[in-house]
């Protein structure tokens, strides 16, 4: 990146760790087609080598570079400075609702632990030696699964969710969205136990449908709709079981 640009951006970057921190101010030259990740990388390479942050693919696939930019969670590698900058100023912070390791790098352990809690792993019943299951891409189940499947686990939905902020045990939009995707996968065999896992005290019924997750998801998924699907599914499953137990 060249330093020849005359315009500069004032960038406030949160520095600190799990015990607290404060903002450092940097002046960064503005460049055409500059992303927020470019800004952070420029600071680290030119102004402060000790700045910690996380990234990998730089093309919006890995989901590792999400940060709060001017108070909104964003994937920084695909967020253009021009679209989010206000008065030549940027404020960059670590993702909300997650513990900070250092500076802009969050500890994602609880995020992925909840993904596991919601039984986000596919459970099949066949082996690789058997024929591939024929699944119509037009079936309602597959369409529902496809609508939720492009999650890159960037945790932007988790950072935008007020219910997570209020209830630290809440599984969160990403884990529940994954569960909904698997519930609609006709090859999956763990539906019953997964429904029990997402219907608990910190599960899908805690969602207020505020739609922060759907507003900020960089892949334009709608976890709120997935969670609403889980609510319907858990309720209908509950009523079906009650009916069967009474008429058995």
């Amino acid at each position, binding site marked *: 990146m060249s330093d020849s640009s005359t315009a500069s951006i004032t960038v406030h970057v949160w520095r600190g760790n799990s015990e607290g921190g404060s903002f450092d101010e940097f002046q960064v030259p503005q460049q055409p087609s500059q992303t927020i990740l470019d800004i952070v990388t420029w600071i680290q390479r030119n102004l402060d080598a000790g700045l910690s942050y996380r990234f990998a693919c730089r093309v919006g696939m890995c989901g590792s570079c999400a940060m709060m930019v001017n108070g909104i969670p964003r994937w920084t590698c695909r967020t253009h400075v021009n679209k989010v900058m206000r008065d030549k100023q940027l404020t960059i912070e670590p993702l909300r609702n997650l513990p900070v390791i250092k500076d802009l790098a969050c500890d994602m352990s609880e995020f992925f632990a909840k993904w596991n809690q919601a039984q986000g792993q596919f459970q099949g019943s066949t082996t690789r030696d058997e024929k591939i299951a024929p699944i119509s891409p037009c079936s309602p189940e597959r369409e529902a699964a496809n609508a939720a499947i492009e999650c890159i686990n960037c945790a932007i939905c988790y950072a935008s969710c007020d219910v997570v902020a209020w209830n630290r045990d809440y599984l969160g939009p990403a884990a529940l969205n994954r569960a909904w995707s698997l519930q609609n996968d006709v090859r999956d065999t763990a539906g019953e136990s997964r429904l029990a896992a997402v219907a608990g005290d910190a599960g899908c*019924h805690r969602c207020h449908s505020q739609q922060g997750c759907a507003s900020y998801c960089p892949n334009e998924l709608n976890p709120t709709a997935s969670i609403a699907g889980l*609510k319907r599914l858990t*309720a209908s499953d509950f009523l079906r079981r009650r009916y069967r137990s009474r008429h058995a």
Partner: protein
Amino acid sequence: MLEIRLYLAQRISAAIMAPLVLLHLGLMIYAIQGGLDAGEILARTRGSLFWGSTYGLFVIAVSVHTALGLRNIMREWLQLRGMVLSSLSWLFFCGLAFAGLRAIAGLVGMS
């Protein structure tokens, strides 16, 4: 499965309330435009099983729905859990149901 039961109770109570709110609003507009005073309204509702049961159902639905909504607020904002949360939710339900049913008793002439 408590969460599913509470979810169903909240949704069912909302479904009951929605048409009854419309009925109530329509009834108020009708009564006011018709120039009925309190005495004339009470004359029509006294001894009426229909109005007693309609508003009775409304009061129960409101009590359930409000208590569950307050339960969520107490849980998230005050971080209450367990027996304290359940007891306070029941208290709100009983208080609302008592006040509402008492008013209906007056409306249909049982008090």
